[in-house]
């Protein structure tokens, strides 16, 4: 509620501002709006997804030049060139994205510098683009024959687009795709394990950021009515990064804060310092740099969190309302062959992590996979889920060979897992983390999310997540950041997330580690109930009391190989197993 009031007040202020302030400030606000668009793209791309881009000005420039050439040379209407400019921007972004987004962190950042610099020199050296002097006489945008050629008129055009982009971005982050996007930076392996196409999602965010930069370029060309290469140099790209970081790189509204602060600061420094030093041109950049250092030394997360603390705290989020249940998979007949691992082999350099391992699992059973530390149990999980690829051997799920499939396709077949090292998005709420598990049970994509056409499905996903959280007994922690829970409870959140995926086969990697006695028995009870519902469970666990009372059968691994297999009682008396665990008796 408080957030709504704040937003409403902000909108009223933005609507009235040009009527109240002098023309000069309207101009500044126009610049702020255009910068906000580009910065917002960076907030998503750099702040949320963690892809550092120095090259957004290339998209701004491309769109600005496209519309400049089409309107001045060919006399096309700016509304038509908006689409032409965005199409060209999208084509460039997709080309660059497909090439470079697979690269890891710093390579990618550098490739963005590369294209940013290269395109600047291309703008400056092409005859048709007016070389370094640029193109002028660009017509203003006109609406039903009314030319928007004053600062105040352009203000509304610029800010309507900017606010729409801000709201779309906020909607996007608060959705099924948004949860996946927020997992990309630190948890992409986990996201893939729940069926997220991380590569595609990265490209979508990259494209959205580029299109925002493109819209900004189009506005720029028709507002200034002039384009020249120096507006699109690397310095411009770095300025946008400053805005994103200073505003708070992972907060949507940080884009507005950062763009405003930097634009005003620059203006103020250029205005004030020459008076102060009685000289021009030398000190602005020094003072600017010093202020940026001081600011980041005080708040390395930027200003958005500082602003958020100033706003009145609203009531906590309400528990998601009940919603129609999501469709469930049909569990296979009990006793049907579910998982077969045949002669699987995985080596890391000289170390054989898994060697010639074979075992089978029937539907409806709980199979325990035990062995001393370093026996290769977690590697087996990674092989089954496709996080690692087996060097030899094969893995079948319900008769189909899956060991050459990518992780997300294996997830789509109904295999859900937890991780030995907790793999939650720590800044995201428990509810959102768990709802991520249901990613494959929803269909609505990024565009639907931006337009809020996903609310019915979103309600179902969140209701399902809340149900699973209740089921594991964490119902009172729905809105806490997952990273703030004790480690044992974080493991339980992982289980809830896996349950949210409606698994046929549930892979649990040490679920009981860090739990207290009461919590352990509750967990064992839950797993028994799941088995009764037909879910099959493959369990890695060190707590023998927990394992022996729960599992139907056991596979024992040591040094990557199968040491024994059988019923719990047989295993407990197997001499080889006793020796592996307790050491031989001399």
């Amino acid at each position, binding site marked *: 509620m408080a957030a709504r009031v704040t937003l409403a007040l902000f909108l009223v202020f933005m609507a009235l501002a040009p009527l109240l302030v002098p023309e000069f400030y309207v101009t500044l606000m126009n610049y702020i709006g255009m910068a906000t668009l580009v910065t917002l793209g960076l907030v998503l791309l*750099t702040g949320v997804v*963690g892809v*550092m881009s120095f090259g957004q000005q290339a998209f701004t420039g491309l769109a600005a030049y496209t519309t400049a050439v089409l309107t001045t040379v060919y006399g096309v209407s700016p509304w038509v060139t908006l689409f032409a400019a965005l199409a060209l921007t999208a084509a460039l972004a997709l080309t660059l994205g497909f090439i470079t987004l697979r690269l890891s962190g710093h390579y990618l950042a550098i490739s963005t510098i590369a294209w940013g610099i*290269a395109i600047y020199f291309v703008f400056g050296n092409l005859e048709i683009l007016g070389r370094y002097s640029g193109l002028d006489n660009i017509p203003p945008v006109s609406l039903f024959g009314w030319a928007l050629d004053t600062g105040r008129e352009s203000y509304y055009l610029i800010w309507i687009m900017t606010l729409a982009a801000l709201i779309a971005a906020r909607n996007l982050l608060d959705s099924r795709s948004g949860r996946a996007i927020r997992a990309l930076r630190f948890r992409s392996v986990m996201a893939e394990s729940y069926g997220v196409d991380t590569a595609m999602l990265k490209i979508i965010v990259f494209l959205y950021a580029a299109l925002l930069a493109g819209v900004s370029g189009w506005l720029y060309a028709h507002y200034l009515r002039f384009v020249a290469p120096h507006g699109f140099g690397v310095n411009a790209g770095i300025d946008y990064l400053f805005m994103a970081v200073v505003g708070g*790189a992972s907060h949507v509204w940080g884009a507005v804060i950062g763009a405003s602060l930097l634009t005003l600061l620059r203006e103020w420094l250029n205005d004030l310092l020459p008076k102060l030093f009685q000289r021009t041109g030398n000190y602005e950049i020094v003072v600017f740099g010093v202020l*940026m250092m001081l600011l*980041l030394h005080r708040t390395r997360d930027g200003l958005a969190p500082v602003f958020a603390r100033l706003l009145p705290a609203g009531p906590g989020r309400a528990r998601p309302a009940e919603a129609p249940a999501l469709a469930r998979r049909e569990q296979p007949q009990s006793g049907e062959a579910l998982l077969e691992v045949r002669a699987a082999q995985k080596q890391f350099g000289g170390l054989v992590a898994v060697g010639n391992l074979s075992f089978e699992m029937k539907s409806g059973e709980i199979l325990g996979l035990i062995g001393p530390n370093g026996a290769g149990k977690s590697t087996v999980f990674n092989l089954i889920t496709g996080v690692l690829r087996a060097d030899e051997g094969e893995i079948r799920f319900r008769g189909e060979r899956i060991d050459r499939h990518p*992780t997300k396709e294996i997830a789509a077949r109904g295999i859900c897992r937890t991780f030995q090292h907790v793999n939650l998005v720590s800044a995201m709420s428990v509810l959102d983390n768990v709802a991520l598990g249901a990613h494959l049970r929803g269909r609505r994509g990024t565009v639907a999310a931006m337009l809020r056409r996903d609310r019915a499905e979103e309600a179902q996903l969140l209701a399902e997540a809340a149900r699973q959280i209740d089921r594991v007994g964490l119902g009172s922690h729905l809105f806490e950041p997952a990273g703030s829970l004790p480690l044992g409870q974080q493991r339980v959140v992982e289980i809830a997330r896996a349950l949210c995926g409606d698994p046929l086969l549930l892979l649990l990697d040490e679920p009981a580690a860090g739990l207290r006695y009461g919590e352990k028995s509750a967990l064992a009870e839950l797993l028994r109930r799941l088995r009764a519902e037909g879910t099959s469970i493959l369990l890695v666990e060190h707590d023998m009391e927990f394992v022996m009372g729960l599992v139907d059968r056991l596979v024992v691994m040591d040094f990557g190989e199968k040491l024994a297999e059988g019923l719990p009682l047989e295993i407990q008396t197997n001499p080889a197993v006793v020796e592996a665990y307790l050491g031989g008796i001399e």
Partner: protein
Amino acid sequence: MSFDIVLWLVQDGIVNGAIYALLALALLLVFAVTRAIFVPQGEFISYAALSLALLQAGKLPGTVYVLVGGGAIAALLDIAVALRDKAPGRLPRILAVYVLLPLAMAGIAWWAAPRKLDMWIQVLIVFGLVVPLGPILYRVAYRPLAGASVLVLFIISMAAHYVLTGLGLVFFGGEGLRSQAFSGAHFKIGVLNISAQSVLVVLATVLIMASLWLFFEHSIYGKALRATAINRVGARLVGIPAELSGSLALTLAAFIGAVSGVLIAPITTIYYDTGFLIGLKGFVGAILGGMGSYPLAAIGAVGVGLLESFSSFWASAFKESIVFTIIIPVLVWRSLTTRHVEDEEE
């Protein structure tokens, strides 16, 4: 294009490439140890080159003001911490490193400037003025943000770059300077006319690389730096302070920057902001080499030098575009040959 021109371009490319290679090493080192993309590397080059040219002209280089001023700020920051920790025992060391040393160097420069001493002594003075800027910069800009994200560290690097470039303009002015060559000699080998200056650049580069190798392989500080680069938490656990590693990395970077500046000063006219673009090319070299391996980075940087020299002959207007777009095919090749999903450290 005749064979002479090819040879001449190759020579030119190798000389520039050697300097880029040094910078590539410095950038790689700082990135590995601190996770900062070290943009201000370029300023060390400009400061060193301009200081040398000014000393040769018998003037006091403005570097002394940056050095003394920066040292004073670093000292104040450390003194504040020492007083808060109630550890006055640290004060003498702080004053010695951040106040007395810069003042002594400034004094030497002031005394030496009008005397136009031997070139080698002037080079040593330049080192004395530029190298201490490394640890001072680390203390003032980076240390308060140790452990921050690559993005924030990059923004701090840019802020430091702005401050140093702005001060460069204030103290050196907007005019470009070029220092005298170390030697005007030329040798003729067949059709090839080699200047002693180019030989010197290549020799100095090789010498520095060899000594860096010795430092990293055989000294305890070198090993500490390598350990920090591989695993910062682990290094801290075995007692290598992160501040020490960061400070040391920036000192080395400043030293390499100073050497590069002194070497390039007689070859090209240097302005207060030239260093940035030179540093960036070193960076491209590091990327071409894979941003992890020092020898490959050096080879990549020499490649950048050659490419630049040839493209300035064929299409000089697009010279910079060509140098920077060359990265893209290399990156494409890398993206096709590696397949992995990787998570950032949180």
